[in-house]
């Protein structure tokens, strides 16, 4: 058991943090969503998306990098590029969009994607796409959202040895990383606000009612973060389902508290809180939402095959 990053991992993550910080721009025009092509290209240029395949860095570094990107108020496709493509389809152009079972649903990153990955049952298909294949969809979720104009006419290619279960596992880890990154950044922005904002002659953050709820939020976020890193490290189906399920399950309560403490400032497009909130809302619904992940975790933890061995306990 060792919770410390290696020197190599630390160095890469520090570099990711520095790069990410350079893109933490305050946007002049308030908008629900801002996709940063510049950030995405910068990440690609420094080889950020290859971490998973470099032995000294591995999935933990890729996962922590996805968390770091998710902390930004702007977005860039990093999860599939970092945690799925390196082992599934490294030769295909990025950014990626992932479709689960349905290919007619509004999906994040489709308007910017060059490759779409579709998982249907045990089959994993890929297709190259361009903007002509996608209809942009206005959305409350703070991602570029689109639908395929004609999914059936795309040049789909089934990946012969692709393991759909493995895609699901790593997508769960990616979701957990993105949610915890978003929640972490949202919490930090609210902490800054409650330290500055004064009401009744004192900072909001000095009221115990506020402190306790933020302390509980911090405890939930930290727990989810470490479950996510553990899942990235072990890669087991149980750990992946548990990390994603936990992150999705805590998100609503945390987002509620954070908006309460941000007050009306959090209703404006000027403050970036809404971006983390709405990205989290979409991520929370992914793969069937927290119930699906937590049921999957329960099935992995307590498979029914053990049942025969324990029949005696009931008697």
């Amino acid at each position, binding site marked *: *058991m060792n919770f410390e990053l290696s020197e190599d991992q630390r160095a890469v993550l520090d570099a990711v943090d520095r790069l990410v910080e350079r893109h933490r721009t305050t946007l002049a025009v308030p908008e629900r969503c801002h996709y940063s092509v510049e950030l995405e290209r910068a990440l690609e240029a420094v080889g950020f998306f290859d971490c998973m395949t470099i032995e000294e860095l591995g999935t933990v570094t890729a996962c922590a990098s996805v968390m770091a990107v998710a902390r930004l108020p702007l977005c860039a496709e990093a999860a599939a590029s970092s945690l799925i493509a390196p082992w599934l389809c490294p030769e295909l152009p990025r950014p990626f969009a992932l479709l689960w079972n349905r290919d007619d649903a509004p999906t994040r990153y489709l308007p910017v994607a060059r490759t779409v990955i579709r998982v249907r049952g045990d089959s994993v298909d890929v297709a190259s796409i361009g903007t002509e294949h996608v209809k942009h969809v206005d959305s409350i979720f703070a991602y570029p959202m689109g639908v395929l104009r004609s999914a059936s006419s795309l040049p789909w290619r089934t990946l012969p040895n692709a393991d759909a279960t493995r895609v699901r596992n790593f997508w769960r880890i990616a979701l957990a990383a993105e949610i915890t990154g978003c929640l972490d950044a949202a919490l930090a922005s609210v902490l800054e606000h409650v330290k500055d904002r004064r009401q009744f002659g004192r900072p909001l953050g000095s009221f115990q009612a506020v402190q306790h709820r933020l302390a509980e939020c911090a405890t939930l976020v930290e727990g989810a973060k470490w479950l996510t890193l553990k899942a990235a490290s072990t890669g087991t189906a149980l750990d992946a389902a548990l990390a994603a399920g936990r992150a999705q399950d805590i998100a609503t309560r945390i987002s509620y508290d954070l908006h309460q403490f941000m007050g009306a400032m959090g209703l404006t497009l000027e403050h970036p809180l809404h971006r983390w909130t709405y990205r989290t809302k979409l991520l929370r619904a992914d793969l069937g939402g927290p119930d699906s992940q937590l049921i999957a975790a329960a099935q992995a933890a307590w498979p029914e095959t053990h049942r025969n061995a324990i029949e005696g306990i009931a008697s």
Partner: protein
Amino acid sequence: MEFNWSDTEQGLREKVRALLLRELPNDWEALSRHGPGSRAQTEFSLAFCPKLAAEGLLVPHWPTEHGGRAAPPWEHFIIGEELWAAGEPRGAQYMNVNFIGQTLMRYGSVAQKAQYLPQMAAGQSIWCQGFSEPSAGSDLASLTTRAERHGDAYIVNGSKVWTSYAGLAQTCFLLARTGGPGKGGIAIFLVPMRTPGITVRPIPSLIGVGDIHEVFFDNVAVPESARLGAEGQAWPIIGYALSHERVGIARYEFSRRVLDRMVRLLQARGLFERETVKLRAGQALAACEAARMLVYRVVDQRARGLPPSADANLARVAVVAADNAVADFCVNYLSDTLSGDDFPLHLSHHERAIAAGVASGAAEIQLNLIAHDYLQLPREARP
């Protein structure tokens, strides 16, 4: 990063499990129903702990000069997980090895170490903590039990309450006021419980027979040599002790094991096929494992020699939530097992869960500490 156990660590766990299989009697679950403070479990611990000591499993994390082998903190935690999850056959002696011993090593005099540490390392030592008072619970620094100096001794007067394990304890880790108000006026005394003037009265409680007590001090004479540290120096020592206490008990592991048992029972009853039951089990599981990760983070920091931090407070809050998630799961789907005496483990888990957020400092105090020390929020104005 590495989230798996090494072969050495796994081997240690197997060794503890083998010892438990060998040493725990068939009626252990019924015997341990009332927890570490009960007479049955205390008496068992006085026979069991020497066997642990003989196997090098009682104080492996202590330095060699005190009977240990300076093993990494992880080893102590692995042992703690196995023993607490098994119902704690060390009885109240878990406190000695979790934090009292380390506190004496760091702050005790040569004579105090010589008097108490060998007994602890031999598994023959029952302690209680004289902390809370009728008017000083969460606000511990307002305690009023007084230790008045008379020559080279102190005369202690006052009372303690909700004192775990006091009924059978040999020694009390006592906080008393030697100076003015507040944290700076407190001193610690190591007081033999047989000292004349001490009266112990058990408090009937929800958390097992023999757990909590009132302790009265009526002109109790305590020699100066029994004082731990200097007068007025108690607070940093208490802080040190509590930082070890907060993550000392492997409650998450007990909750996880009990949850495993509950699920197997539901499977055997054919009731685990319902998706809502699986969902709730998954939620309780996630709470246990999140708590485990936060505790492990603290152990990891300790293993690397880092000073205690507010991370321990986060761990404690998460553990309380996990305990309650599992206890609630049991009430939801296995409430029948909480009546009668067929499922003593469910009952003892349930009772410990209700105490988890209160014992050793309320969860709300942990939230205060997280707010100030971890989130750096401004302190609330106090009247």
